[in-house]
């Protein structure tokens, strides 16, 4: 009998389809982050400097013009970058810590407790973020922390649901059984097998949630539920520019473009991460 030699087809060299979105995303997020960092050490004008004249056109003195109180708009947008990134990161940290904990609990819970947690998560997801934010602001006062907690709590339910599903899938995998047969305890299995295997999907989702949080922060600030006045959020800049949009459109366009740049950048990065963070997607198919 002749030996049948089966040659595995070589995996085609992976096309780097994701690279331009990832690079563009990193550039956009990097630009916003650099602006935010710069705002900590240098600003064109002091944030409360109202000497620029009201609603000035963009000029060399005021690159983006001034607002209706005579403040330099570029200064306000730079501070806004800092606020947007801070709230985005803070919300993701709050949402991830609470969400992953609850999701893991649900995945390991008895069916009854699992159903109860899942129903609770559905309630939180159905609960308007706006109402949640109003309640928290009413209880704690308007502050950056209140905004981060409100957005983070709303986000945590989505993260918990995803964590629960991903964990259950990994728990059904034979390598978990194999790890248990060799005597690994549950905490070890969570740390060494479950978290690494759900992280690629989870981290992409968290990156997308970061974008959602930035938009949510702008919305809350627009409605006056965001950080109080000395903090110039992009959302509040939009709100302040609303009445003068026709005469001085730059006041709305500048923070609007900044928002788009950051959220789009984050989404591009998330897309690029999905291709990189998951070795399973790297393997030939």
């Amino acid at each position: 009998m002749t030996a049948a030699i089966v040659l595995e087809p070589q995996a085609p060299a992976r096309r780097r389809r994701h690279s331009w979105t990832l690079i563009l995303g990193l550039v956009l997020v990097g630009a916003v982050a650099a602006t935010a960092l710069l705002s900590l050490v240098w600003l064109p004008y002091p944030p409360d400097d109202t000497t620029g004249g009201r609603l000035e056109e963009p000029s060399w003195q005021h690159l983006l013009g001034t607002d209706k109180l005579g403040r330099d708009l570029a200064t306000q947008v730079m501070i806004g970058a800092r606020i947007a990134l801070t709230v985005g990161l803070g919300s993701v940290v709050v949402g991830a810590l609470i969400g992953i904990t609850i999701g893991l609990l649900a995945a390991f819970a008895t069916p009854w407790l699992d159903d109860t947690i899942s129903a609770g998560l559905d309630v939180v997801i159905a609960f308007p973020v706006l109402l949640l934010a109003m309640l928290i602001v009413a209880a704690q006062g308007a502050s950056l922390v209140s905004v981060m907690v409100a957005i983070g709590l709303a986000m945590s339910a989505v993260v918990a649901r995803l964590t629960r599903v991903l964990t259950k899938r990994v728990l059904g995998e034979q390598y978990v059984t194999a790890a248990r047969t060799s005597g690994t305890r549950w905490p070890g299995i969570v740390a060494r097998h479950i978290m690494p295997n759900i992280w690629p999907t989870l981290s992409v989702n968290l990156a997308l949630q970061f974008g959602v949080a930035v938009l949510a922060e702008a919305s809350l600030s627009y409605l006056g539920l965001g950080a109080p006045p000395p903090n110039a959020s992009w959302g509040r800049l939009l709100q302040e520019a609303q009445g003068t949009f026709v005469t001085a459109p730059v006041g709305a366009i500048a923070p609007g473009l900044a928002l788009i740049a950051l959220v789009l950048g984050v989404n591009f990065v998330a897309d690029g991460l999905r291709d990189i963070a998951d070795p399973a997607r790297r393997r030939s198919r």
Partner: protein
Amino acid sequence: MSLLAVSALTVRTAEGRVLVDDLAFDLAAGGRLGIIGESGSGKSVTSLAVTGLLPPALTVDGSVLLDGVQIVGAPERRLVGVRGRVASVVFQEPLTALDPLMRIGRQVAEPIARHRGLRGAALRGAVADALAEVALDDARITRAYPHELSGGQRQRAAIAIALASRPRLLIADEPTTALDVTVQAQILRLLDDLVEARGMALLFISHDLAVVSAMTSDVVVMRSGVAVERGTVAGMLAAPTDPYTAELVRSARSLDDRLGRR
């Protein structure tokens, strides 16, 4: 005292379907036993029941004494002390039994670190030794992910992981079924040598009479969760008492005839 004593083992699904019915067998330290049966005969359920790994939805009755520890109904805390230290399992499909996102070296290192308390350079040395023992000498394999290895290499790695905790009983659940025939022969020889060299007991589960007979002389034949026959492979080939065993032997023979193997 036998290392593994199973008596009146019965496993039922939540709907009341019986997967294993009143099964009993003994395995002495250093002894070997084969369990043979077709798909759905309850042989894999048996191997999971022995290490207390059955999903909670299944109800288990009877007794499984592993090194004197009652497995049936035992809390997780007690099972953790037995798993790995007393018994390890090699599964059918090594690709799914290995963590896809963990390098092979780390997967081997984990049970070694836990059971032998090694760290640092000593641990790295022990990992290299464990892989060399299963003829995976190439240093690149330590750094490889499971999907970068061949099926045979993966199963060798899985065997190294199972043996890393120095168990006294190795449960091999269809360890060569997912492999092609030449690799299958190599893996069987490797298992045979390692079990022999370490004086381990072996519970070998397979649907393949020829494979089982290469590894053990004593077998239990299972069908629909019931042990229909037990005895030596030689005796069974010569004079099967149960009609199902006779059928197994006859079909194995006719396959051999057609392949011109006899």
